[in-house]
């Protein structure tokens, strides 16, 4: 596969790279090392800049006002946008805008009016609730939240966990079991407003990632109108699954981005830090760490771009998405770990972003489907058969 960049791609990437290094990184000197939000006045200023550049709302489809950038270019941009302290979970602190929740583009016209367009206008925020205490790796079987029809409405009962953004959201996309006999074909997707009686954010779940935390949710006889069913009854798992595969590519790209920056830092430090009269960069032990980093980086980068290119070409990309998520999250973890080793004691401090990336990358091996599940997906696609 040829990854020679077009002139347009080179221009875009140069612009994004300069934006990250000149506008984002300097602000981080004054922010808490775990921050994932900018002060409002900086955020407004930088959003105005990305709008001026024509890069705001990168993931919004062109027919809804987005810039219409293909996934390969978007992935290349994600490599750049992650190259700062908060870059893994808050690339550029969100000043490039988001797409909202991709499932809303499949909503009916009434639902788009009530949810999608307010999200795109920045008036509403949503969350995605699939995982439950009974498990997240096999959601089709693990979902115990039930939805029972009652006249034109549905009554939801159950709980969800590890749900990001729920405590600040106006509504959520919630998956519930509507037919206990049908397995993955008995799941339905609902739009649930957070002010519906019976909905409750039970607690914040504290993890290695101090910001962009997740929450535990409770649904106690939440009455949801029938017009809030997203898609078809009992077809909700297909909606969830489509999102899971596609999300793995930008998820991998973020890992590649921070790993690129960690490698840059490791090389720069090795070329300036002396031990026993010479630079670290002259020591074979350090050279090999940098070489191993480069191998991990190039592998992850190429596989992530391959997955994006297949998706752009309209070809099946589930296997490639699983592989790039797996390789990028594991490879980036090793790269950051080696970069910390090269930096010695400073690598452990909050003065440098490495310790934050180290913590957050650990989550990446579990988030968006644990890497063992990615291996299962690849095994199924390569060998054939289904899960048992």
């Amino acid at each position: 596969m040829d990854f020679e960049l077009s002139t347009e791609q080179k221009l875009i990437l140069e612009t994004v790279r300069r934006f990250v290094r000149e506008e984002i990184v300097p602000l981080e000197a004054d922010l808490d090392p775990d921050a994932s939000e900018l002060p409002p006045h900086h955020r407004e200023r930088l959003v105005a800049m990305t709008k001026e550049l024509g890069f705001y709302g990168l993931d919004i489809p062109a027919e809804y006002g987005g810039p219409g950038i293909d996934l390969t270019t978007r992935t290349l941009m994600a490599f750049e946008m992650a190259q700062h302290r908060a870059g893994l979970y808050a690339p550029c602190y969100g000043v490039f805008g988001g797409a909202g929740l991709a499932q809303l583009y499949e909503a009916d016209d009434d639902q788009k009016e009530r949810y999608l367009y307010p999200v795109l206008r920045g008036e509403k925020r949503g969350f995605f609730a699939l995982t439950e205490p009974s498990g997240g790796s096999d959601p089709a079987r693990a979902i115990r939240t039930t939805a029972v029809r009652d006249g034109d409405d549905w009554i939801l009962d159950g709980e969800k966990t590890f749900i990001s953004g729920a405590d600040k959201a106006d509504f959520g996309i919630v998956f519930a079991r509507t037919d206990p006999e049908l397995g993955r074909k008995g799941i339905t997707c609902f739009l649930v407003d957070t002010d519906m009686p019976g909905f409750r954010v039970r607690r914040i779940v504290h993890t290695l990632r101090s910001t962009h935390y997740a929450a535990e949710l409770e649904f106690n006889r939440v009455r949801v109108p029938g017009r809030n069913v997203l898609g078809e009854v009992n077809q909700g798992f297909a909606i969830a699954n489509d999102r899971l595969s596609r999300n793995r590519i930008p998820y991998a790209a973020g890992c590649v981005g921070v790993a690129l920056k960690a490698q840059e830092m490791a090389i720069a430090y090795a070329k300036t830090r002396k031990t026993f009269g010479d630079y670290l960069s002259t020591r074979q032990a350090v050279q090999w760490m940098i070489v191993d980093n480069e191998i991990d980086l190039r592998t992850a980068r190429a596989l992530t771009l391959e997955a994006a290119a297949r998706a752009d070409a309209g070809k099946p990309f589930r296997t490639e998405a699983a592989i790039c998520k797996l390789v990028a999250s594991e490879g980036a973890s090793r790269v950051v770990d080696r970069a910390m080793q090269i930096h010695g004691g400073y690598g452990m401090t909050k003065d440098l972003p490495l310790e934050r990336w180290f913590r957050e990358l650990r989550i990446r091996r579990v988030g968006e489907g644990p890497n063992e599940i990615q291996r299962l997906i690849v095994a199924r696609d390569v060998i054939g058969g289904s899960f048992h």
Partner: protein
Amino acid sequence: MTGVRLAKHWLNLDEAAIAALPGQLGVYEIADANGGTLELGFAGGRSRFGLRSAIAEAAAKHEAAARFRYEVTMQYWSRFEELLAVYLADHGELPPGNADRGEQRVGRLGAGRIAVQGR
């Protein structure tokens, strides 16, 4: 919402108590003599001496500050957000020292957004 509150003993705010504080990262609550919360805060990665300097600096901003309590945690940011959300759910507003943050930027624990704001 038991279990998410800052369930630590109150300490009198004086020089000796501040000097005895650990230099670790964590969250804190500063109150007046009647127990009214003046500010919730955290000692983050940029604090010079962790909780010791963060609490001293925060207390200096409040003339009525009389006591405080704290919790050592590396997850200071999400714990701080949680304490703000609990306080907002309990009182319908933020402590005076956190008012400039704006309620819209604070999460809602318990019932949904409108139920909390409409208390």
